[in-house]
């Protein structure tokens, strides 16, 4: 589904990604872990086209998407939930969702009703200003917004950041359900171990701009020494 090989990206004059190799299978939930400053966000932004890759390949279903403009990548079926959510806080919930349909011709612009089954709260508060939401609600909005255009691949950057545990659990549950029902592929950058263990099929560990290790979740549950090695103090 997604295949990244030997990807290099620099940001602000320094080479952050130093040769990433990563394969994600269809309908898989891949979690990328690592401490701060290891290049997780840079990786996400590069896949999404917000940062230009310096060298290397990014392929989505055997089609190269490296170096394309973000709107083109979005049109190829990639949804993105950035770090810090970045919802449009002055807009209503409805407008936030509607934005993701803009690339379609006018008649085809519709927000799938099914979304509200996963996120009923968004329907209740359709006309409320998004900025008035709590962090967790904003996160749900950001996820829903990324799903509006029925992407094949969903990228999430630290969805648990600054959100209370009960909501994290709910978001985890929803993501699982969506993955099961639609077969969407999900790549998440995350540091919250609870969420990782609940959600992941496969885990990859990022260190100093490279994928240092990958392993299936089951192995991780039995033995969390890897988590301690790459994540803890």
């Amino acid at each position: 589904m997604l295949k990244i090989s030997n990807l290099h990206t620099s940001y602000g004059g320094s080479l952050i990604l130093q040769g990433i190799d990563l394969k994600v299978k269809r309908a898989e939930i891949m979690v990328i872990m690592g401490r701060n400053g290891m290049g997780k966000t840079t990786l996400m932004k590069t896949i999404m086209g917000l940062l230009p890759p310096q060298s290397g390949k990014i392929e989505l279903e055997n089609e190269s998407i490296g170096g394309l403009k973000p709107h083109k990548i979005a049109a190829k079926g990639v949804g993105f939930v950035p770090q810090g959510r970045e919802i449009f806080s002055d807009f209503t919930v409805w407008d936030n969702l509607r934005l993701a349909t803009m690339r379609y011709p006018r008649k085809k612009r519709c927000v799938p009703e099914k979304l509200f089954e996963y996120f009923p709260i968004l329907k209740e508060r359709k006309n409320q200003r998004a900025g008035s939401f709590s962090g967790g609600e904003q996160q749900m909005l950001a996820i829903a917004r990324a799903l509006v255009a029925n992407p094949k691949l969903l990228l999430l950057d630290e969805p648990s950041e600054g959100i209370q545990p009960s909501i994290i659990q709910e978001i985890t549950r929803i993501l699982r359900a969506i993955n099961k029902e639609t077969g969407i592929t999900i790549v998440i950058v995350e540091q919250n171990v609870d969420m990782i263990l609940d959600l992941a099929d496969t885990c990859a560990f990022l260190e100093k701009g490279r994928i240092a290790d990958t392993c299936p979740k089951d192995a991780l549950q039995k033995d969390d020494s890897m988590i301690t090695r790459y994540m803890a103090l």
Partner: protein
Amino acid sequence: MTIILKTERLTKKFGGLTAVDHVNMTLSKGELRCIIGPNGCGKSTLFNLITGTYKPTSGRIAFKSKDITGKPVHIIGRMGIGRKFQVPGIFNQLTVYDNIRVPFFRDQRRSLFLKPRKDSDIHQKITALLQKINLDDKACLPAIHLAHGEKQWLEIGMVLARRPQLMLLDEPTAGMTAAETRKTAQLIRNISREEKMTILVIEHDIGFVREIASRITVLYKGAVFKEGSYETIQSDEAVRKIYLGKSR
């Protein structure tokens, strides 16, 4: 031990968000201290409060027993607090040599419109500093041509040139290779030892923290969560939890 920096119930709110929450912290003269904590815990905001970039919502900051709360940036800079920014804050168009020279001009007794005397000791000081930060062979290169790690060292050198009593370093190893990171740790240790300077470092890279720090402050949700040596912090169960977001 004399206390050089002291914050009392320091608080900063942005709208509804409390970025820094009643932080009480003291630094003794000559201390090397690391501040760690998960993203968004208020580390950078704390720096911005100390340097005067932000004005605190409430609370007090005392530097060398003088109240500096709410003073403008350049006044605090003159009082002896130097800061290295997260994104290298160097002068790209100036040469490495001139980058170090700029902070020295404040010590110049002569008018700023006159060229410094040939025999002035500033040149020696600059050369010594350049050697310290391993950039003496690149003195005449415009700073924009330096590698990322070298830019970080240059900035540390620029801050040192001001001979501050307190140096704040904001993620000095961000974006560095492993080798550069080790070199930086060594550099900071040397400065701490040789110059007897008080240094406060924000850092994510735990390996780096282990190499340099004598004492660690953990910030969490804007408040001081824990303080202690590397060993105590590392083995502290509560700290592990907030770092991993683990609840079980």
